[in-house]
């Protein structure tokens, strides 16, 4: 009996604890499903200026609520994705973009994966070649490039072995 009561109260506590987290983010009605899709995409891509690392879709900061409202308005008014991004950047700076545009300042950021990949491939190729070469070249050299003196000595040794 005691146990059941404990279980029920634990469950109740869990449900109550979960409730507010579901209530934080408001929902918007869209006239077209396509707009809602773009809303989801853009709100996931725009960064909350107040928070350090949250997009406006996830954040419950007042500024994120405002920006979501604004995003909804602008989408309904028929603004393009690029116009909306530009609107945000004009006010909050490049910081609001989780996908920063390609520029001098962000070139390294965008190109780093490619540069690192090329670097990795080059290092791998050099390492593999170094590892294969010593064995292959040494073998070839010793087989074909015995000097006359060595040939002579080889013959003597073999003769010696035969006679013994």
């Amino acid at each position, binding site marked *: 009996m005691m146990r059941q009561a404990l279980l029920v109260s634990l469950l109740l506590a869990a449900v109550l604890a979960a409730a507010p987290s579901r209530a934080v983010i408001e929902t918007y009605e869209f006239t077209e499903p396509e707009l809602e899709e773009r809303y989801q995409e853009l709100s996931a891509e725009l960064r909350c*200026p*107040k928070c*350090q690392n949250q997009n406006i879709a996830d954040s419950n*900061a007042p500024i994120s609520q*405002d920006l979501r409202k*604004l995003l909804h308005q602008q989408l309904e008014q028929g603004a393009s994705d690029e116009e909306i991004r530009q609107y945000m950047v004009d*006010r909050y700076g490049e910081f609001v973009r989780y996908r920063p545009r390609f520029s001098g300042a962000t070139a390294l950021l965008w190109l780093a994966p490619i540069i690192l990949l090329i670097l990795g491939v080059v290092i791998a190729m050099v390492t593999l070649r170094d590892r294969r070469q010593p064995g292959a070249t040494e073998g070839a050299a010793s087989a074909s490039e015995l000097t006359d003196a060595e040939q002579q000595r080889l013959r003597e040794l073999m003769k010696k072995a035969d006679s013994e």
Partner: protein
Amino acid sequence: MPARLKLFLPLILFGVLALFLMRGLSLDPKELPSALIDKPFPAFTLPALGSDETLDRQAVTGEVALFNVWATWCVSCRVEHPYLTELAQQGVAIYGINYKDEDAAALRWLQQLGDPYIANIADREGTLGLDLGVYGAPETYLVDAEGVVRYRHVGVVDERVWTTVLQPIYVQLQGGERG
């Protein structure tokens, strides 16, 4: 020689990484430069707090001034309020942007704590705040005589912030005005 250098590669890499991380320690990620620096103060037409007047960009620009974004729900604004009052007494021009607030509460605040502002823009919906790129009160913008935003400080303006950050720019802008 190259083979021996290779031995030092991990150490060199560690050194470079350590340098970057050291630099990272002294950077404040919360320091977000305003997108409006050296751009004109946004145009707006909003009611003045506590009167029937409307204010626009023209009405509040023309001299070097601070624009202080505040609200009664903002705890830090209460902290910085006495210092703003002090600055106003020293003759610094301060305009208030009452950000997403209730007029009645804001007027009561000014009555009780004193009013350092030349005028207050009642930005009830936060539209001007949005155009300014405000992301939380208090914020203080330093605007020059041409109405161009020169600096934005996020957080409380106290004596340290004023003397080390804002005042030098303020004085410089005023100097430019005279010369």
